């Protein structure tokens, strides 16, 4: 209707806008190329760099799509809008389609997707496929709400504290379990700096293979909702030189074999106020300060020392200060549930004494 056939369909203004959008795209694509991913989130495993390359590739080609789509929307809206006072019933171009253009915007994205698919396919095995190169296989077990790691050569597991030698491939067999399997839920093992994530599923063992590339301490985060303590289910992975790792391993072996002869924690003279603060920071995820029946994950502890209905602790021992301290120190694991030990909860002996003092001060 309104086509003036003497004018070309795509005029100088259109091409000027296209050039402008292309320049904006190019600048942003350059930004994608030089963006320092490593400075924001260290590339701490060998696969991190490969995965970040895929990110760069995706962002690089997403930029022109976003710039052209949004740019042309804004330009067309400005160029072709009907101003006040103009004929509001007039109609625009009657061009219905353009086979060449439509073929182009089908084929070009298809090719980009294909390349992305091939890239992903090449990177994937580095993370998943077992190779003979692993120096050790560690068992990683998710619990409510902490990570347990079992090393070959260590009699006792270490909780929330994974030590790995730099530059060596290790295999971690991931699963989830509880002393009573009915309580087991799905967790997930995520180390953002490694770009590695794998669900820990009860009844399934899934091995992953990691080669840490950088010395440092990183986070292990549970990313699958596992219950009321999910937010606090965070561990750490320490990547260290082979000699540091060996030292840690030896001291761990030494500590475990001498565990029985360690001096008992003195619980006398705890500070109830400091204990109350520690309780709010570390314990309230699972315990309230109400009556026994006001359960969260574990029972309410308001009457712990003064409850005629529950004169004994979950360990079967009487509710006295020494035995309460014993549970805080060593955790608990049994039919009634699981509670992490003082290392997992990052408590010092002084904290344990303060907590006992605080719990003694409560009286419902």
């Amino acid at each position, binding site marked *: *209707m309104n086509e003036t056939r003497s004018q070309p369909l795509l005029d100088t203004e259109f091409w000027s806008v296209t050039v402008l959008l292309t320049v904006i795209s190019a600048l942003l694509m350059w930004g994608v190329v030089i963006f320092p991913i490593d400075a*924001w*989130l260290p590339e701490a495993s060998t*696969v991190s760099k*490969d*995965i970040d390359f*895929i*990110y760069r590739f*995706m962002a690089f080609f997403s930029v022109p*799509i*976003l710039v052209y*789509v949004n740019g*042309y*929307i804004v330009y*067309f809206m400005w160029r*072709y*809008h*009907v101003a006040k006072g103009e004929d*509001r*019933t007039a*109609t*625009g*171009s*009657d*061009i*219905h*389609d353009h086979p060449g253009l*439509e073929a182009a*915007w089908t084929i070009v994205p298809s090719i980009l*997707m294909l390349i*992305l*698919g091939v890239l992903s396919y090449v990177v*994937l095995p580095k*993370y998943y496929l077992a190779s003979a190169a692993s120096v050790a296989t560690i068992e990683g077990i998710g619990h409510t709400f902490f990570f347990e790691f079992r090393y070959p050569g260590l009699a006792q597991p270490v909780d929330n504290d994974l030590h790995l030698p730099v530059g060596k491939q290790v295999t971690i067999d991931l699963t989830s379990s509880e002393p009573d399997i*009915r309580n*087991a839920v*799905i967790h*997930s093992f995520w180390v*953002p700096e490694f770009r*590695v*994530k794998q*669900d820990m*599923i*009860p*009844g*399934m063992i899934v091995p992953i293979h990691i080669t840490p590339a950088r010395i440092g*301490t990183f*986070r292990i985060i*549970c*990313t*699958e*909702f596992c*219950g*009321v*303590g*999910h*937010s*606090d289910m*965070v561990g*750490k992975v320490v990547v260290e030189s082979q000699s540091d790792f060996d030292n840690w391993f030896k001291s761990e072996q030494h500590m475990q074999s001498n565990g029985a002869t360690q001096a008992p924690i003195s619980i006398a003279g705890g500070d109830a106020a400091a204990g109350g603060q520690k309780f709010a920071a570390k314990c309230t995820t699972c315990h309230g300060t109400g009556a026994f029946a006001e359960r969260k994950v574990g029972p309410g502890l308001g009457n712990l020392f003064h409850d005629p209905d529950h004169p004994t602790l979950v360990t079967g021992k009487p509710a006295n200060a020494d035995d309460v301290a014993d549970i805080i120190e060593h955790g608990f694991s049994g039919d009634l549930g699981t509670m992490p030990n003082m290392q997992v909860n990052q408590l010092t002996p002084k904290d344990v004494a303060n907590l006992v003092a605080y719990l003694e001060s409560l009286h419902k």
Partner: protein
Amino acid sequence: MTISELQREASHAHIHPPPQGFVSRYVISFDHKVIAVQYFITSGLFFVLAGLLAEMIRAQLMQPHNTLLSAQTFSEAYSVHGSAMVWLVIIPVLTGGFGNLAMPLMIGARDVAFPWLNMFSFWLFPPAGILVFLSFLYGAPQAGWTEYPPVSLHTPGTALWCAGIFLIGVSSTITGINFMVTIIKMRAPGMTWTRMPLFVWATLVTAFLSAIATANLSAALAALFIEKIFHVPFYDPANGGSPVLWQHVFWFYSHPAVYIMILPAFGIVSEVLPTFVRRPIFGYRAIAYSSVAIGLVSFMVWAHHMFTSGLAQWVQLPFMILTMAVGIPTGIKIFSWVATLWRGRIRLSTPLLFVIGFLSCFTFGGITGVMLASVPADIHEHATYFVIAHLHYVLFGGSIFGIFAGLYYWWPKMTGRLLDERLGKIHFWVMFLAFNATFLPMHWLGLLGMQRRVAFYDNQFEGTNLLPMVAHTNVFVSISAFVLGLSMLIFAYNALRSATRGQVAGPNPWGARTLEWMTSSPPPYYNFAEIPLVLHGPYDYGKPLPYANISQDLATEPVD
């Protein structure tokens, strides 16, 4: 068929009188237009409740270790927020609401194929929603809208949640079958497949998805319910079940459901665009057939939600490739819509603004969708705020913007009165800016290490230098989310105001060409005095109307 044959066929149609009495007219109504309004009102109430839950979530995350909500209450809030927005707002509004309101009118029918079933599927909906919200009294679900067992089996409210979602699922299945039959059998004479409005194409594909996929959800929910109540092990590994089984059956429904939630919005965009750009939609066939392609492929991509669930690599590969393939027909649609703007005569009315907002946000959500399809990238992003950002760009930036475009567009058809343009534009700009301010920074939070479903986030940034930046970003996001919530009040005021002060619309206020505008606003009980004849496709702006048997005084000029 010649025109005279078509006219002979159409003359067999006859008009039933409208029912008398309040209950049969407005409560137990068989009229698709009344049922549509019932869906809108019910979903509107659930939208307010689910929106308030969202604001509770954002209030809690204002501080890294906030004591406003307990971890349990926080989990209940996001679980019911997600469930309600998906099943009680977006799906019912787009299918039960817009499908009922517009589809029968657009194909020139007097009602859907099975009006009694239509009434029945609506009345399954309010009890379903009430059950989901009642679960708060018993300890609502905490594992998110996906309710992965075994952890979901540990919350008592899961049983009520299952029952509620089961009911809405049955409702959705029935509506799907009803709409399939209606569109296939009841189009006005002369309305061939390629003369069908694009919203009807979208509704047809959605109907197939609802009817086929939702049955899987019902089965999965029934099993979860039986396991919860009678301890028959389907999903709990302690008794020999498989937790990954739930993920498969759940996503076998819930991935097609993503397209149930977006295809009708695509349809709304395809209607609003040509009306306000006043030119034929660019690539009608490409847009129509790409909906079918998306519908087909949507059944073969479900395991892309499970790339960290221990699938074998050879299983991941086809799901990755097929997921990327969904991007191709989606891209075709977006590029066709942008090309429709080219050389139009664009009237910048509120429905068009929401469509533009849709295009901008949905393109972004589509691109992050491709980023989630690549398995190595997904492994890093899975279950983080990157996913939260992506899904809100698709479901809020896509579906909700589409819903508001449709509301502003069809409001005069539904009520006979226009919404205020000035308030509509303010609503759009506040909502558009607040939406992007809320969800754009979440991509960044997720990539840096903030996982989803956490009430506290101080722990996971301890030992990094990121916590202050993450905390400030969360404050910014929360404030934006409050503004986003407040923007809905502008719409609420506009809607109430239009009842008394809205401009009377007339049959065709926008000068559109599809059949729903060829009858009065609101349409009479029987929709059309005579069933119209369709001679051409609906989008040839500038040419004479492609219908016979419609009263000529209805083809009025736009009033805006």
